[in-house]
């Protein structure tokens, strides 16, 4: 357990490391620095830390203005506010003119402490994915988070980063390199492909081990880059395994499952099963309570996979 690290921790520390090298990195905070871990940046670079108060719309506009002067602004808040609250500001002030603004949503999906439905972001990927010019990334673990933040600093354009709150084990290899639009096969398999992102990847890997006992050889893909999505790895999975299951910490409408369906439907139709939150609002509770209530535990996923594959 000791080697589990929260993506938000890696995010906060990576920002400090990159901030030392690059004086153009600035961080905007809508009164959640201790939660999003931009508090580390605040301690290291108080002059480049911009607290805007609980005013997310203004934060996005300020970030847009700063970016026109060559700054690389990271506008940070919870994912629900970073998407729902500021949808128009992100669209018109940032994405339309393709400004170099990084929008960071912390506390993602169902896993938001015990904050419940109002603070759960089950729509953020759907919102961000449908905005032209936006890149959407949900890194899975600390290592990938570091690589993704480095990428975001070097990429000239708007990026939405979905950064998990809770500790994750090491999922990607230590020498992993993030590439825009490229996913990673975590486990090879020929009977079915499980595609997931963020916090659900751990349970999806466990589910793959569980179904193996039933004689099902499942491939597992970490789809951290949700837009642009890795079409080739999806088509290859459809061709080689014939069936795909998506597992996401998001409404099954508009998120990762939808992104995969779009590619498969257009390029290589096969059957797909989407696992996620089935168009309902969440509840207060621990992560384990959420997973149990919304049938997102490894055993729930395994059961769905077994039913789907039909063995």
């Amino acid at each position, binding site marked *: 357990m000791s080697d589990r690290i929260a993506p938000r921790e890696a995010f906060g520390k990576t920002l400090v490391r990159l901030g030392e090298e690059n004086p153009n990195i*600035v961080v905007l905070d809508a009164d959640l620095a201790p939660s999003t871990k931009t508090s580390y940046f605040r301690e290291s670079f108080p*002059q*480049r830390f*911009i607290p*805007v*108060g609980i*005013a997310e*719309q*203004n*934060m*996005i*506009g*300020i*970030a*847009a*203005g*700063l*970016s*026109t*002067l060559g*700054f690389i*602004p990271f506008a940070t808040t919870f994912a629900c506010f970073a998407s729902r609250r500021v949808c*128009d*500001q992100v*669209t*018109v*002030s940032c994405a*339309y*003119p*393709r400004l170099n603004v990084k929008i960071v949503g912390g506390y993602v999906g169902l896993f938001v402490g015990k904050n419940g439905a109002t603070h759960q972001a089950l729509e953020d990927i759907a919102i961000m994915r449908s905005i032209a010019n936006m890149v959407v990334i949900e890194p899975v673990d600390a290592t990938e988070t570091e690589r993704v933040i480095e990428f975001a600093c070097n990429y000239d354009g708007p990026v939405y980063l979905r950064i998990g709150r809770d500790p994750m084990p090491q999922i990607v290899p230590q020498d992993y390199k993030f590439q825009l639009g490229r996913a990673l096969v975590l486990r090879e398999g020929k009977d079915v492909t499980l595609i997931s992102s963020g916090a659900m990847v751990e349970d999806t890997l466990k589910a793959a081990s569980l179904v193996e006992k039933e004689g099902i050889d499942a491939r597992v893909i970490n789809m951290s880059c949700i837009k642009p999505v890795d079409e080739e790895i999806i088509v290859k999975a459809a061709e080689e395994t014939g069936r795909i299951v998506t597992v996401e910490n998001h409404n099954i409408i508009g998120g990762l499952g939808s992104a995969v369906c779009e590619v498969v439907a257009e390029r290589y139709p096969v059957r797909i099963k989407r696992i996620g939150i089935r168009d309902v609002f969440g509840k207060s509770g621990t992560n384990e309570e959420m997973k149990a209530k919304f049938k997102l535990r490894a055993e729930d996923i395994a059961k769905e996979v077994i039913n789907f594959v039909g063995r």
Partner: protein
Amino acid sequence: MNKKPVERKKLEEIANRLRIKVVKMIGKSGFGHAGGSMSIAEILTTLYFYELQVDPENPAWEERDRFILSKGHAAPIFYAVLSEKGFIPEDILLTIHHPDSPLQCHPDMRLCPGVEASTGALGQGLSIAVGMALGAKLKGKSFRVYALLGDGEAQEGQVWEAAMSASKFKLDNLLAIIDYNKLELSGKINEVMPLEPLYDKWVSFGWHVIEINGHSFTQIINALDEAKKIKGKPTLIIAHTVKGQGVSFMEDKVEWHAVSMSVDQVKEALKELGCPQEEIELTLSQMKEE
């Protein structure tokens, strides 16, 4: 300040030419935001021909002043002043609203030189201006940032978030102007959603506020000069204007917010603005080409 003495007559001529260009653009396009363009002719003229340190030959000049038209729907007169200043050629003005034109209905910073922010969704421009002014302070730059807002726009909550932050960050390099023409799309501001007491509101948000007649060059110039002397806080100019100013049948009429103009209306408007007869004839023939 390397300010040249400005001839009042020259400013008046420019403002009038802007209005003529607006009528021609809206006439040719068959659509456009007329009223809220006309109300800011003197303000834009004074900004571009008295105040702003900008270089049309080098629109990306790093030290330039930044101007943001937060009320992006007044794009016709914004494009008119950009052509008058030399940022864009005059002959593209009549392409306004065409899908392939750099002159989109609302200003697009990626398509049109001299446009500093893509605006049109009301309420967003002042926040962007705050970001620019804050960035100037962080970088130790001395340029100034200007934002022109509509009055109805101040009904957006984001404007007040931005107002609060500009004063917190002590942005004395930021100047906002409100085009207070008292009308919005669906009716009178005072009936739709009153802004008063507007002066007191901005003062209470920590701004230095100057109230002027937005059609008086003297008052605009004096307010711009006064704003530069204010230290430690941003300045707001509340410019009392008349929507549709300069074309009598448009003045103070809510119906002239976004319009198409008939051949007769274009003719009458251009005549009133003193447009030469041959130019009127040309405009009318261009309208009939469509």
